[in-house]
Each structure stands twice: as C-alpha cells, then as structure tokens.
C-alpha cells in the first residue's frame, strides 16, 4: 500500500574509508554503520540516546549514533573503535581496558572507549572524580565502573608522563 521511501545517496568517510550508500532519511547513524557498512562494533543499547553504547565520533566530536541520522553525516567523517589504525591514545585505552579488566561482556565497551578517548584528548588533567563524571553518559551494567575509571586514569597518567608526546600529530 505505501510507496517505498525515497533514498538519499550519502558519502561518508568511515574509519578512513570513503563510502557511498543510498539510505532512507530516517536511518540513524548506527543502523547505517551496522546495516549498510557492515561495521557491527557499535552497539545499540536503547536507541533513545541514554545508554551511550552507540557512541561514535562524527567530525571529531562524539555523538550518540542513535540520535544522529545517517543523512546528517553526509560529507562527514565517522570514527569507531573498529578503525584499523587506532591512534596511540585509543590503542592505549584498549590495552588499559584489558589490563584492568574494565570490561566484562564488552557490549558497552566500544562506546565507552570513544567517550574515554575524547576525555583523554580534551581533559588531560582530569582526576578520578572528573573521569567518573565524564563517562556518566555511558552505562556499564557489568563492571561497577571502578575498573573503567582505573583504566582511563592509567592512560591519563601515561599521557601526563609524556607517553604520547613524541608521536606525529596524526598517530597520537
């Protein structure tokens, strides 16, 4: 009975790869990543912008992927944890999460890492309390958060010790 919804062709750079896809205007960014790009690493926990499991970077800013439409990302640059060339800070966070057991089931982890990455980049002096506040937009139902805070604080401390200083801008 109803006509197929017209699709829009969008061009998005996803983890360094230029992709062109035709999407319905109502398609949100995470469905675009998961269904149209085959990138299953960003997860849907609530699809109403609360849990943070779908946190990805769009043009350098973290967004709730379920609250951004794919067409809004047209011409933009999207980064997820699946990037094949993680920055030194993302790599350090990934390693710290494993070292500290800052994940259990791992469902929240991709979003949590993207949120933590922005913290490490933008709030290098953050203390434990500020880390807790920063990641309060990302639910973790398994860990109790303590280990996540430990892991992020480890990377902040490494950064303050100069661990990422000698790297070229693009690698850091």
């Amino acid at each position, binding site marked *: 009975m109803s006509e197929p919804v017209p699709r829009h062709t969008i061009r998005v750079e996803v983890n360094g790869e230029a992709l062109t896809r035709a999407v319905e205007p109502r398609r949100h960014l995470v469905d675009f990543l998961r269904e149209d790009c085959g990138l299953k690493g960003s997860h849907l*926990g609530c699809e109403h912008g609360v849990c943070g499991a779908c946190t990805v970077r769009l043009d350098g800013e973290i967004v709730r992927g379920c609250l951004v439409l794919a067409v809004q990302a047209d011409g933009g640059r999207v980064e997820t944890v699946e990037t094949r060339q993680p920055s030194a800070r993302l790599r350090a966070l990934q390693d710290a999460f494993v070292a500290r057991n800052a994940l259990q089931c*791992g469902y929240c982890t991709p979003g949590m*890492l993207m949120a933590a990455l922005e913290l490490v980049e933008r709030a290098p002096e953050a203390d434990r309390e500020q880390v807790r506040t920063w*990641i309060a*937009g990302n639910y973790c*139902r*398994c860990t109790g958060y303590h280990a996540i805070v430990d892991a992020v604080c480890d990377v902040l401390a490494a950064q303050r010790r100069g661990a990422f200083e000698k790297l070229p801008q693009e690698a850091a």
Partner: protein
Amino acid sequence: MNSPRDTPHLAPLGDVTPDQQHIGVAHPRAGAHRLTQGRGQFVDDIELPRMAHVVYWRSPVAHARIGRVDSSVARDMPGVVGVFTGHDVARLCKPWVGTLAHLAGIKSAPEYPLALDRAHWQGEPVVAIVAETRVQAEDALQHLVVEWQDLPAVLDTETALAFATPLIHPELGDNLCFERRLDTGGVDEAFANAAAVFEETYRFARHTGVTLEPRCQIADWRAGRERAEGHLTVYHSQQAPHMMHDLYCRQFELQESQVRVICRDVGGSFGIKVHAYPDDFATVAVSMLAGRPVKFVADRLESFVSDIHAREHRITARIAADANGDITAFEIDDLTGIGPFSMFPRTSGIEGNQVVNLTGGPYKHKHYRAQLKVVFQNKVPTCQYRGVGHPIACAVTEALVDGLAQKLGVDPLALRERNVIPDDAYPATGASGIKLEVLSHQACLQRMRVLCDYEALRAEQATLRAKGVYRGIGIATLIELTNPSAAFYGVGGARIASQDGATLRLEPSGVITVLSSVGEQGQGTEAIYAQIAADAVGVALDRVRVVTGDTDATPYGGGTWASRGAGIGGEAVLQAGLALRENLLKTAAVILKREGDDALAGLLLRRGSVIDAATGAELLPLAELGRIAYFRSDTLPKGFTPELMVTRHYAQRDYPFIFTNGVQVSHVEVDTETGFVKLLGHWAVEDCGRVINPMLVDEQIRGAIVQGIGGALFEECLYDEHGTLRNGSLADYLVPMAAEMPDIVVAHVQTPTASSALGAKGAGEAGTAGAPAAVMNAINDALAPFGTRVASQPITPEKILRALKKL
C-alpha cells in the same frame, strides 16, 4: 585499584596442580582484546542468508480479551513475509507450566508462545510479524489491527487473594501460586522472653536486569521433506544453551539430533537470560512457518515489558534477643507478586523460597518462623535475577540486627561479632535448616574492621554530626548460595543440569583445546578455565584456547546460574586436565620407551614439555608428542592407543549448596534538606573459597555491588493503577551510572570448599546480596539522630524527606 599489581596478596593456599603457575593469578583476559576493537559477535551482529526479522505486537494493557486480529493491511506492506497469531504458533509448540515438584503445592497455568485469547500482562506477545527487514516489520506493525477488550487487572499483592479480587486463572481457584511455612518451634517463647525485640515492615520494589544487549535470538529451521528430517539452529543470547536445547526439543517434539543452540558473545545476562521466554519459542515457530531464518532482537522499550522482573516483596519481620545481646529468634511474613505465570522452567516460587531459607542465615539463633505467599498479578512475570532472594533476605536480616543494636544500645559491628555462627562451628545447620559446609564470618568481620577503619569512620561520624553533617555506616553480613547440587532444580523434576562437563584435547602442535558446557557472559569464565587447564595439564597460558556455547560441540551441562561457573565448571576442567596430563605422560613413556612400574614416576610435564623428573632435562615437547601420536601412529607399539582427548564431569553432591559468606560496609552522607544520598565509600570482604583470578573476582563483586545499589537507591518498575508500566525506558528507569558510584574496596578471606579439589565457591551474586542491606543500614544510621528510619527500597530522596517529615 583493579590491576594485577594492586590486588592485595592473598594468603597462600596449597596448590591443586603440580607446578601451579596460573591458578590464583590476576591474569588479564586474553579474550577481551577483540571486544575493545569492536570485534565481538553478538546475536544481532550475525546475518544469515535469507534471514527475515520478526517483531511482536504485544499487549498494550495489563489484562485483555483478545478479539479479532486484522492483518490484511499489514500483510500487504512492503517486505512482509507473514503475520502469525497464537493459534498458528500453538499448532507447532506445546504450552508449558512453570512448576517444580519440590515446591510443594506450586501451581501455574499453561502458557503459550503467543497469547491465544487472553493477554495477561502489558508486554505479553500476541502477534508475530515477519518481514525481510526489521524496518519493514516495524512499519507493518503500525498497520496491524488487534481488537481487545479490557479485563480487570490484579495488581496489588495485598489484595490479590481477597475474595472480591478477580481470578487471573479461574481454573486454579485462586490467585495463589505458592505458599510455604517454616517453624522451628519456640518462636513465641523467644519473643515473650526477649530482653529486646525489633520489628519493622520492609518493601522491595520490582526491578529488572537491564542487560545492555537486549534479549535476542536467531532461529533457523531447515525443513526436510518430513519433519523428522528438519533441523533447527538457534543463535541465542543465553546463559544455559543445553537447557534451551532440551526445551526446544520438548516443546516442538524434536529429538536432540535435530537441534543446535549456539551462544557466542552475550551482552550481559545477570539471570535475565537464563529463562525460557514465550518469544523464544515464538521465534522458532515463525522460522518454521516462514521457512526461513528469523531474527528477533528486543528493543529497549519491549525489554522493560518482556524481560523478567524481580523482587516486589513486602516483608513484616521481627527479631528477638536476650539480655546478653544474643539473638534468639527471627520471624518473617513475606508477600510477593510474580506476574500472571510462574516462569518456565525455573518457576517464580524460588525467590520467595530463598528469602525463607536465607533470612537470619549468618546467625546462630535457634528459633525461626517464616510465612511466604507468592501471588499472581497482571504485571510482567518475575523470576530469578542476580541474587535471587539474597538481597531481600540480607536486607531484612541486617536491618533487623541494626534495629536490635539500637534497642540494646550496642555497636552494630560488635553485635554481629557476638552473634554470627563462629568459624570453628562448621559444618553447621542454620535455623531454617540450611546446611553450611564452612564459613568465615568472624574472620571476615575482623578483616572488615581494619579494612574500612571502622573506628575512624565512627569517630568522624560523631565529629561531623555535631556540625550538622549526617553520615552513616551500614554493615551487612551475608551468606550466598553457590555451587548448587541437583537439590535446586533437578529433584523438582526440572530438566536443568546441576553437573557440567569439560573436554580437553591436545592439538598436534601442543595447544590444549578446552570445551566446556559453561559459557561466557563476561564474567571471565573462559579466562579462568584457561588458567585451570594450563596448570592442570602443564602448559603456558597462551597455549590454551577455550570453546564454549555450542551444544553440538561442548559436553552437556547446566551453564551459568547460581554462581556455579567457577566451582562446578572449573572443577570439571581441573579433573579433565589432570587426566589428560596423565594420558600425555603415558604416551610419552611409550614414545620414549621408558618401561617398568616407575616409568611414569620418572616423567613430569612442565610448561609444555615432558621432562626427566630426576634431571629436569627436556625429553619431549608436546608438539613432538602430538606429531608422533597423531601422524606417526605406525611408530607406536601395537595395542597402545594414545588418548589425547579427555572428558570429565562434575556435580557437587556433598551438600545441597556450597554457601559462601562475606561482609560489606557502606558509608553514606544524607543531605537532610534534599533527601539525596551520597555514597562515600563501599568495602567488601568476600570469602568465595579459592580465588582463581583475583582481578576478575574483584570486578565481579564490584559489578554485583553496583547492581545491588541500583535496587537499593534507584531502580523501580513503576506501574499506574491500570497496570501500565510508567517508566519503561532508560530515560525514566534509573540504573547506576559512574558519577554516583563510589570506589569499592574488595578483600578476600579464602576458605576453600572440601567438596571439590579446586575448592572454589561462587562469587557472582554476593555483591548484589549484601549491597542493599549495607546501603539501607548506612542511610538509617545517618538518620538515627532524627529518630526516623526508611525501610522501602528503592530509598528515594522523597522517601527520606517523608521519613524526616519534610514532605
């Protein structure tokens, strides 16, 4: 701090394997790396050829007669494969009744995958729409017309059994699912002769698990020319694959060879994913009807009205003590509502039953009386969720002990030290009849006193009180039921395995493959099995891989529930590993042509190689042993066959359950103007027997504590007067977030169970058991100067302000 180097040194226990390198060590989980790179494989990540998607039309009201279903428009929507009703599905799948024989008198009504003529709760699945894509199925759902007629809803547990209340299942005769009474005798005398009695009524709201990955499943039925040729594969986010395998066989009348259940990454479970839900069966049925693989992924809104809920208890309770401060008796009256059906196959009678068994559990009183009524209501069915009765029993017990301490004018920690069953009194039997193998309440209390610097907290509290700052210190002593025997479910007729199996196989390169019937939902099960296997066989940790979650591949077993993965599954891995080591040495002796009675004694297996016991010289790396055994059998003597794959099973049969114990302390500050509670600190001393990986155990305990805090302070499924859930979204239903949670300090006392060689007890639920008690006691301790208390969870700012008479 949660890291290998920061984990406090544990008092050493004797080794359970030769050359033990890994058991007890805080190794990071090797399998976690891929999850940080977005390379997990959760059910929704799996795509199969010709896979369709199902969405369910769920009852929008609490109780309704289902009328005409008009799917004519929906069927014509783009991509729609089929629209199926309860009657369509009931032709394929038998109904079930969630009862157990050992819960005497428990009753429930037959339940179907999709409601037939009546819907019993808001959220019950009624009609299935299958389409090429999820979007198309959801679009079609908007055009499905279902007529219904509202029926009166039974909501309030207090009046569920009243004569005037309508019956949810008229054929059952009343709205009572289950009742139980327990009386040791002497209770009335104990209260009559008591020097102090404290009585209070406690309320525990409904809450739910909120697994971040919703329940999800892909059913792939491949029909043959005849039904007997058909084969069903189910990809499932589930804790008990073999149980589901068995249930699919029974409900669809298939034999085991026709069904395979695969559980890959599971995004949180907490008990939510150990039950058989109506839509589990409906999704299988629609795969059969559509002739295609069908994926179901609950969205968050339907998770709130279709995942099991838990709790909803009202408990009136009292405690008596003599003039010496010795607790003499407990009495409780528990009323709990479980929704319209007892869940399948574990039943919804267990949580109340556990409250009866566990209340007063840490203490040495002799007199106890309990009454339990479990009633039906038109709300989401409740069932076992992390802690199962423990958080309630512990909160009631520990609040009573604190109330008693106040009446007696004694320190609450000292009162506990006086009354717990002493560490040298085991094995012991609790007043409720529970058998306790060996616990360490005294050692844990002693450790806690130091760990949280109890005296300093009390001194600070007194100082700040004088300045109008109200801080409280809440203590919770707890027991936790783990490593269950068949007494939990099997004796009641449930086809739920209390045993688990492990198969260990030498690969030709010397790698050890472990196949276990217990799977991984993030707790680190696979990681600790690798540690146990590495030590049991004698190889490096990175030479072990663990395979779980496939009923075609793994031994048969119960899976993850009741804190049994380490204690039961781990023991099976240990025994299989030790047996494989023996077989490897026998094979090595043959290859090395060592003969005679002491041939085996002269060989050791160390870190991947067979060595000479006398000289330590390396004789045969496992890779060489594997090469010869698998590819050059021609060089082995006739009559000798290397057995390089070994299976062992383990069931705990010494006690109904192996209990653990622990103590938690919560430190809070209550803002008496706003009613807000700030969590300042939380400490846990835990005795889960032998700790296999302290870092993983610590974060298990912390996560469980935070879930317990959620129930104590935030989480509640709120219903309106019509039985409609008012807060079924993550924006409205509050779960703990990082900013409100305190750092949690964890310490261990290790008292291994003698029921297994490994000595591990469970650790997954004790945190949830104790946290609500500790937090409630801390809040009431803070409120003590105002002569008021709160006893209704979640303890919201509003409830605190009402207690303070500020509202």
